[in-house]
């Protein structure tokens, strides 16, 4: 099937229904492997067992940013090509990205207390991540409160593109400013500074969380397509009733 066929919502739903069971199975398998590796990973020589929080915090941070990147690409599809599936993809990514950003902030705070001695500091990395969560909540408010869904979608798409400015700020905040948060340690020039005994389970967990994100994203997109069908059918029903009573 050509990729362009997926732009048709009915064909897209057929593909999602076929792909979802496989994605769910792959996600579960990766989580089992990842959690087994996490349980058997050694403690950090400085942080001790609290390093186990890293296996949640780092993938959640990546996916919080990934979600917004996805929404920005979808926003282009909404604003430039006005494709309904692009809007569906953007709307579906928002609650999932918000959830992962929330997990990142909470687990980071719980990791910070024993490591830094504080739950929160207003440093550039933490603050820019909090701004990302607030942006997610803003987009969700636009989607959920707009009377006219298409106007809400356009406003959310504009906010998604404007908010994309925050992504490089989050990424490079630890280089541009003096922060309590550590600098990049996985993806950096000269290779990762994390020992393979900790890096391997981290990457497996990151892959498992990414598959979970994609699985949820497709499932939420399916729900959104069904919701739009319900809306159009209810409008038809109202039209029929109005014609019958006229």
């Amino acid at each position, binding site marked *: 099937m050509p990729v362009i066929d997926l732009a048709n919502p009915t064909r897209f739903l057929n593909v999602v229904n076929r792909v979802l069971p496989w994605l769910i199975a792959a996600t579960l398998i990766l989580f089992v492997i990842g959690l087994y590796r996490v349980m058997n990973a050694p403690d950090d020589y400085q942080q001790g*067992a609290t390093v186990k929080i890293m296996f949640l915090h780092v993938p959640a941070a990546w996916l919080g940013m990934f979600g917004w990147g996805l929404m920005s690409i979808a926003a282009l599809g909404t604003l430039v090509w006005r494709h309904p599936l692009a809007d569906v993809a953007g709307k579906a990514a928002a609650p999932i990205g918000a959830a992962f950003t929330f997990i990142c902030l909470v687990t980071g705070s719980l990791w910070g207390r024993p490591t830094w001695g504080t739950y929160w500091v207003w440093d550039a990395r933490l603050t820019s991540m909090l701004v990302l969560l607030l942006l997610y909540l803003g987009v969700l408010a636009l989607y959920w409160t707009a009377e006219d869904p298409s106007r809400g979608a356009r406003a959310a798409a504009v906010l998604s593109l404007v908010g994309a400015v925050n992504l490089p700020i989050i990424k490079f905040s630890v280089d541009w400013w003096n922060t309590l948060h550590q600098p990049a340690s996985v993806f950096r020039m000269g290779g990762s500074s994390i020992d393979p005994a900790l890096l391997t389970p981290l990457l497996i967990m990151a892959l498992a969380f990414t598959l979970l994100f994609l699985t949820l994203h497709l499932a939420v997109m399916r729900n959104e397509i069904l919701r739009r069908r319900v809306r159009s059918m209810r409008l038809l029903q109202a039209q029929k009733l109005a014609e019958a009573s006229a």
Partner: protein
Amino acid sequence: MNLGPHADFIIAAYAVTIFVIAALIAWVVLDYSAQQRILDGLEERGITRRSQRKS
């Protein structure tokens, strides 16, 4: 597995993550069954989308 003196923080981090993801999954599953139920109800009442009608 010994989680050391900061076990509470580690357990809390995993508990919050599991709770948020479980809530997300529950919302997706319940929303799917709700939309399907409404769609089935509308179709039973003879309301069909334009693309479903025979020309």
